């Protein structure tokens, strides 16, 4: 009976909890950056102030399949609102949006080639090629 109860409990946990993974903000593993605060990440990805903790200019990357979840987790805005925000900045010539990449392989490649890039990916897919600087829970 106890075993049945225990397995029911595990089943309940399994269906209730881990369905959506977190999003990991990642940098080049040799960049020397250990941590990026949430407000720094907002400043960098929203084009307000693109400075890495090591003082370098930050180059953010968007991963298009994950973009809607990422901005919901970062600034609690839907993609239409984020795009509308960027339309103002782009077409007034104030700032350029993050570079748009289609898959995680491209993100990993760019990050390993440039120490100033900052990207994000599903935390379940993080490899040893990159260093996680911020976890965004959903």
């Amino acid at each position, binding site marked *: 009976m106890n075993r049945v109860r225990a397995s029911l409990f595990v089943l309940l946990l399994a269906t209730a909890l881990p369905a959506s993974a977190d999003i990991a903000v990642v940098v080049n593993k040799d960049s020397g950056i250990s941590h990026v605060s949430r407000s720094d990440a907002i400043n960098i990805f929203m084009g307000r102030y693109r400075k890495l903790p090591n003082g370098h200019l930050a180059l953010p990357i968007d991963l298009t399949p994950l973009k809607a979840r990422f901005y919901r987790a970062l600034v609690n805005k839907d993609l239409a609102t984020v*795009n509308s925000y960027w339309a103002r900045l782009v077409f007034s010539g104030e700032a350029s949006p993050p570079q748009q990449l289609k898959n995680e392989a491209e993100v990993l490649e760019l990050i390993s080639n440039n120490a100033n890039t900052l990207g994000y990916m599903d935390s379940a897919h993080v490899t040893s090629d990159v260093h996680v600087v911020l976890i965004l829970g959903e």
Partner: protein
Amino acid sequence: MSVLRILLISLMLWPLCGPAMARALTEDGSVTLSGFGTLGLLHNSTDEAEFIRDIGQPKGADEGWSARTDSLLGLQMGARLNDELDVVVQGISRYHDTGNFRPELSWAFLRYTPSPAVVLRAGRLGWDVYQLSDSRYVGYAYPWVRPPVDQFGSLQLSHIDGADVTFKHPIGSDMIRLKLYAGRSDSTIFLTDDLEADFDVDKVYGGHLDYETGPWRFRLGYTEVDADIHYAGAPADLIRQYLRIDPDPFFNDMLGIDNLKLYSLGLTYDSGPYQWQAMVNRSHTVGDSDVDSGFVSFGYRVGQWLPFAMFSIVDTSTPGGEDQNAFGQRTYSLGARYDVTPGIALKAQVDRIHVDQPGFLWRNQDQDWGDSWATMFSLGLDFVF
């Protein structure tokens, strides 16, 4: 160009429409193409005056439907030379001072970002005189079909040829920005259907201080415009012919718009579904008149819907005198934006306008038109890619 051509090009660009706003043209993504556009349809209820979006439009929208007032198309190309240098070129086709949709170079500048705290730009730049003023044609960026005419309709310039510098300084999670700019410019505005003023702006300079904290953003700005104005059209010809004097100093004395000082205060609040925006401005002319304007807008996002309400007002005052060039009106707007996909939005809006004195914010108005109501109904389709 015409509205029809804008429609055709928009249809051709349709498959591109989406959230990217920076389509890579080269393999490494260093050259990008992006664009924005509006297909706008406006219904004017009154046959007593024609509606204009801004004083650069020589003819207005007559009673009935018009697609000319708000429809436009813009294209931007960006080239990244290295991490610190990039070039941006942008063109726009809209119904403007040439009396047609002839494309115009809106920006062409080199941007230098030596550090995250400093941005320098030189070349042709947007006129960043008020919050929103350098993105006032990017319909996708705001909830309304067009920015409030009472506030933005009498703006004289769209771009400047010069340079600007922006300093940014984070204070905790707040951000303070200072932008300074200077340059020259030219433009044509229409005071009436048959009197145009060609602005040769030899000096335009100013700056603003911007403070962002949490969902709040404040902005305080000042700009001065110094222009040589050449007046053309039937009234100018009559003055030259019958009074035998140069019409330029004559109109400058009368209107006093060859030197302007523009003060502005802007405020936005953007948190979760709430979007508040408010602005007040005073433009002081060398003729000692003031043009005061302002607006307040509130929007609330519910999923793909963004219903909004707005109130705007403009009023002129000349100390110690009746001013026959005065204008004043107030507008009550209600509408909604619907985001079809990320990159495409549909809008509908009703404006109830109480016109005290139409001045040069209307065209072809009846002689005694004033102290009257007019109703505009507008539909818009905005896209970016």
